[in-house]
Structures are given as structure tokens and as C-alpha cells.
């Protein structure tokens, strides 16, 4: 116990948060490159983008949005639970968050396989027969949602690690910054989707 107190006296909470926020900046910039491509090609091929977006299912997109928003809620609640010392409740909420992430990916899988089944995937004969703007729209769709999907997987892995720390007691009501940082990362994953959803599904 005394060892823990010494550790927490040396531990820089603000520094850990600062580092995490800086990291989130880099993630936003990473996606920024793709948003830049989207902006350029949307302005070049506005009509094609409009037509292509008709092919995406708003319902599936909306379901995934609801799933991710709910997962952000359970994530935030798990932090509150941990800080109140309700370890078991926090563990349950973290597990639910991971399951939400999984549900998102399953939904995404069916959505992608639907498109691939229709013959719409990068460099497919069907897609190449379409207009330039539609080729680029679906290219962006696969790359952006794909990269986002990878981030969902990373986020789930991070939460799973923190979950095991919570079970072992290394993450606790006194030392919760790891869970908070995992939460920040998860919210980032969420917020990127919040931008992807309207760009691909809503504005047609």
C-alpha cells in the first residue's frame, strides 16, 4: 500500500492527460488527410457523389450511429462507476462497450458484404463502368470506413486491456487515468463516425 502512495505522488495526472490529447490530435490529422480528399473530390464531382450516396443504406448507418453513441455512454458511465469505487459495475459497463463495438463491426461486415455482393468494390468491373465520381465515392467509402473500423478494433483491444487491469485492481478508484484515456480514445472513434455518417449516408 505504501508503495502505491509513493507511486501516485510521482504520477503526473495532468501530464498523462496532455499526452493523450496530443495523441488524439494526431489521429484527427490522420483522418484529416482523408477528409481533405473527400472535400476535393466532392467539390469536383458533386452530382456523382449525390448519385452514389443513394446506394448506401441510411438505416444501417443510423443503427451503427446509435450503437456507437450508446457505447460512448456506457464508456463514460464505466469511468464514473470506477471513480465511485463500484468496480464490478464498471467492469460490466466496459464489457458492454466492447460488445457494442463488436455489434458495430458485425453490422459493418454485413453492409460491406452487401456492396461487395452487388459487385461494388475497388477496381471491380461493375464499379469501373460507373462515373468517375462514383468510383471515388466508393473508394473513399471503403478506405474511410475501413480505417475507422481498424480504429474500432484498436479501441476494443485497448478497453479489453484496461478491463483486465480493472479486474486485477491496477486500475482502480485511485488510479483511473488509464480507463479515462481509453475512454478518450473511444470517444474519438465515436466522433469520427459522427462525421462519416452524414458525409456518406445523409447528404445525398
Amino acid at each position, binding site marked *: 500500500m505504501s508503495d502505491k502512495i509513493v507511486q501516485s505522488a510521482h504520477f*503526473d495526472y495532468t*501530464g498523462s492527460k496532455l*499526452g493523450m490529447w496530443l495523441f488524439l490530435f494526431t489521429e484527427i490529422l490522420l483522418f484529416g488527410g482523408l477528409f*481533405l480528399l473527400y472535400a476535393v473530390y466532392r467539390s469536383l464531382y458533386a452530382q456523382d457523389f449525390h448519385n452514389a450516396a443513394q446506394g448506401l443504406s441510411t438505416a444501417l448507418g443510423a443503427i451503427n450511429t446509435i450503437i456507437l453513441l450508446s457505447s460512448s455512454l456506457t464508456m463514460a458511465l464505466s469511468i464514473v462507476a470506477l471513480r465511485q469505487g463500484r468496480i464490478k459495475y464498471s467492469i460490466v459497463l466496459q464489457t458492454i462497450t466492447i460488445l457494442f463495438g463488436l455489434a458495430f463491426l458485425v453490422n459493418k461486415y454485413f453492409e460491406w458484404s452487401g456492396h461487395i455482393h452487388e459487385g461494388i468494390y475497388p*477496381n471491380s468491373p461493375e464499379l*469501373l463502368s460507373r462515373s468517375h465520381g462514383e*468510383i471515388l465515392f466508393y*473508394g473513399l467509402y471503403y478506405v474511410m470506413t475501413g480505417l475507422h473500423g481498424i480504429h474500432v478494433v484498436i479501441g476494443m483491444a485497448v478497453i479489453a486491456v484496461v478491463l483486465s487491469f480493472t479486474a486485477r485492481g491496477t486500475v482502480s478508484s485511485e488510479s483511473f487515468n488509464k480507463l479515462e484515456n481509453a475512454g478518450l480514445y473511444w470517444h474519438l472513434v465515436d466522433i469520427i463516425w459522427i462525421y462519416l455518417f452524414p458525409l456518406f449516408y445523409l447528404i445525398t
Partner: protein
Amino acid sequence: MENNFYHTPGRYSGIFGWIFSTDHKRIGLLYLGSIFTFFLCGMLLGLAMRLELIAPGRQFVSAQTYNALFTVHGVIMIFLFIIPGIPATLGNFMLPLQIGAQDVAFPRLNLMSWWFYLFGAVVVLTSLFTGGGPPDTGWTFYVPYSVRTGTNVSLAVFGVFLLGISSTLTGLNFITTIHRLRAPGMTWFRMPLFTWSLYATAWVQLLATPIIAITLLLLMVERSFSIGFFDPAKGGDPILFEHLFWIYSHPAVYIMILPAMGAITDIIPVFSRRIIFGYKAIAFSSIAIALLGYLVWGHHMFTSGMSDFSRMIFSLLTFLVAVPSGIKVFNWVASMYKGSIQLDSPMLFTLSFIFLFSIGGLTGLLQGALATNVHVHGTYFIVAHFHYVMFGGTVFAFFAALHYWYPKMFGRLMNEKLARIYWLILFTGFNILYFPMFILGWQGMPRRYYDYLPNYHTGHLISTIGSWILATGVLLMFFNFFRSLSRGEKAGDNPWNGATLEWQTTSPPPTENFESTPEVTKGPYTFR
């Protein structure tokens, strides 16, 4: 046994005590060893290129091999040597010492950055010997050629991607360290200017590198799935790749030069025994260079196809970058005015830095002007300019800093007499190697060409002879470096009488850097 970080037992012993160490000093030296190795690799490739160009026609390599040579020379020198060059080696070692901290903010992340660096380096080197052979695109990986070529571009690009992660995490670490771990009394304006330059660099590393990461990812995706983002046949735009590439790669130039300028700024007051002139101006000019550096990428693309209006804006902004750079040069010179200058080896390298960097910088303005740019774009003039800034600038500053901080890192002095000899060899060889390139370029010799017309022969011949002289100097320096590790004269804690915090502890420092947390009461260049 002496109390220094070499002798403190850690969790692991032997080699594992190094490669799994989270001590910023050990990690700094790990980086130093790595970049020395890659510098020598890059230098050998450069020598091979110069040898091929000694006379018109084929000498000893094929055109394809030559393409691979200049690509790999560029990739190694830029991504493996010069970008991690000063910040990850000397920065890692000196930053916590200069601000009176025990370590960086995230020591384990720091170690992870080195592993990312090493892993990236291994991937890059693997790409040379596997698949379709070494990449032949030039270090800029321009599409469409980089998408079409059968050489091993994807793997090389993935390696560079990993190196980018390493660089980003180092930047993140340094920013947090400077914000959170300054010793009591170490206010922002008492920080040494090397630390200031690392701070500005770290922001560029953090905010620019993700752009190259996504660009390279897109290139890999294009090569694997042919989506068509950069393929006009599918509606894409190859120029967009150039934009994305230079949005990172121009700021990257400042990742290379800013810490070099910072090291120079720390050395000049010590060897002039005088306070730095214009402390705040130098600190803010680092920040200004970092900011403006983001806005000038278009000047790499003046001939690529861009509206006249954008070209004028980019040209104007390019000229603006010269202002903070000029502020630094004038302040360095003013700091030496009426000082009692000691021409020890760090100072010799520093002075030659100012000279060479000024040539490199001023010829940069020539290219920033739209009319001359069209004339010199893609010629040896660019090659000369780039090497004057990067080799004459950053690498000479790196050498200066190595000689300056050597006693701090190893507790011994490098042989001063030998250092002066090879300084002269390096300086002479450098100018013989690169100055003819200005003339060749002005006469119209295109860069990256395997062969050339006979009327360029003299310039190329002189240049190749210069490359041998320069390489001799480099080898002598390495000889001195490694020989002095064991044979060098004992340096004592503060051989140059520096006033910054790193000189106030023992040499080499103990693992925890200072016996007790230092209390800072005065500025970094206050000599008595």
C-alpha cells in the same frame, strides 16, 4: 565505482540493459548508434552515385541500379538519419538535463519510439533485398510511377510509415516533458534555446507527421487495391498526392533544421563567453518557422500545375520564412560581437554551419521566386541547395553538437587536434562536392539523371573528387569519436564552462540526472 548511468544496475544487464532501458540517456545513445550506422550506409550510396557520375556514360552500375541508389540514399538519409538525427539522439539525451528533469514524461513510450524506429528501419532495409528489388521512385514516391513500378515500394513505404509513428511519439513525449517536467524556477524564458527549438520541432513532428502517414497508407492501398484516388483514368488527381506529400514533407525540413539551429544557439554563447543576443527573438523565431513552415508546401510544386494566384501566395509565404531564419543568423553573429571567441572544434563547426546555411538559405530564396524557380526546378541547383541546407546546415550543426556534448555524454574529450584537421577536410570537401552542383544546375544539368552531356563533365568530376575528401573527413571523425570513448582525455564535469543546466551535473550524469532537484535562479547564458 563512479555514480553515473553507465554503471547503475537496472532491471536487465548486458545488451538488454540497453535495448529495454527506459532511461532517456541510454535511449539517446541507442538512437545515436543507429543513426551513425544509417549515416554510413547512406554515405556509401552517395559515394557510389558520385563515382558513377565521374564521367559521361556508364561507369559501373546500370541505370536501374542508379535509380535505386538515389532513392535509397534519399530514404535512408532523410527518414533514418536526419529526421531523428538531432531530436531523438541529442534531444533525448539533453532535453531532460536542460530543464532539470529526471527523465522524459513517458519513458516507456520513449523506448517504444526507438523500437518503432528500429522496426521501421529493418522493414525499409528488407525492402531493398526482397520483392521486385529496391524502390526506384526517388524518396518522394510520386504517383503515378510509384503505383506502377514493380519494385518493392509498398514495403519501403510501410517502413517509412513506422518511422513516422516513432517520430510522432517522440514529439508528443517532448511537448509533454517541456510542459510538465521543468524544474522549480525553470520558467519558459529561462529554458535553453536548444530546448526551445526542440519544443518547436516537437509540434511540427506531432502535427505534420500524421499527414505523411495517411499519404503513405493511401499509396499502399492504391498499389494493393487500385482504388484510383491518384489515377486520372478513374477520376483521381496525381497532383493531390504531391500536395499531401509536401504538406508533411515541407514542415519535415524544419524538423531537420530547427534543432540544428537550437544546438548552434547553445554553442555560440559558450564559446564567445557572452550572453546570447536577442533570446526571445530566437525563441519566437523557432515558433514562427514552425508555423510558417506549414504554409509553404506549394513551392515544391511551382512547375507541377497550380494556378498563378496560388503560386504567388506560396512564393510570398516562402519569402516570409526567410525572416525568422534571418533573425536567427543576425542574432548569432551579434552574439559573437565583442565576445572572447574560442575556436575549439564545436565552434569551428558552428561557424561553418552559419556560412554554409547562409548559402543554402539564400539560394533557397532564389527558388522561392517564381521566375527563377521555373529555370532551376528539377536541376542540380536544387540538389546543391538541399545539401547546403541539410548537410552544410543540419549535419554540420549535428557535428558541432556532438563535439560540444561529447564530454557530457561520455565524460571524455575528443582529440582536439585531430578534430580541427578533419573539420578543415570536411569543410573543404563539402564545398568541392556541392558547390559545382550550383553551377551545373544553373547550366541546366537535371537532377536524378544517370548520364549527362560532355559539357557537364568538369563539374561532375570536381564534385566526385570532393565526395572522396568529404568521406575522408567523416571517417576521421568517426575514428576520433570511437577512439576517444576509451582513450580520450578525462573531461571533468564542465570542460567548456557552459552555464546551462546540463553542465551543472556530473559527466556522465547519474541515472536520476541530478543529485537533488535543481533550483533555477538565472537564465541559461549567464556567465560570470
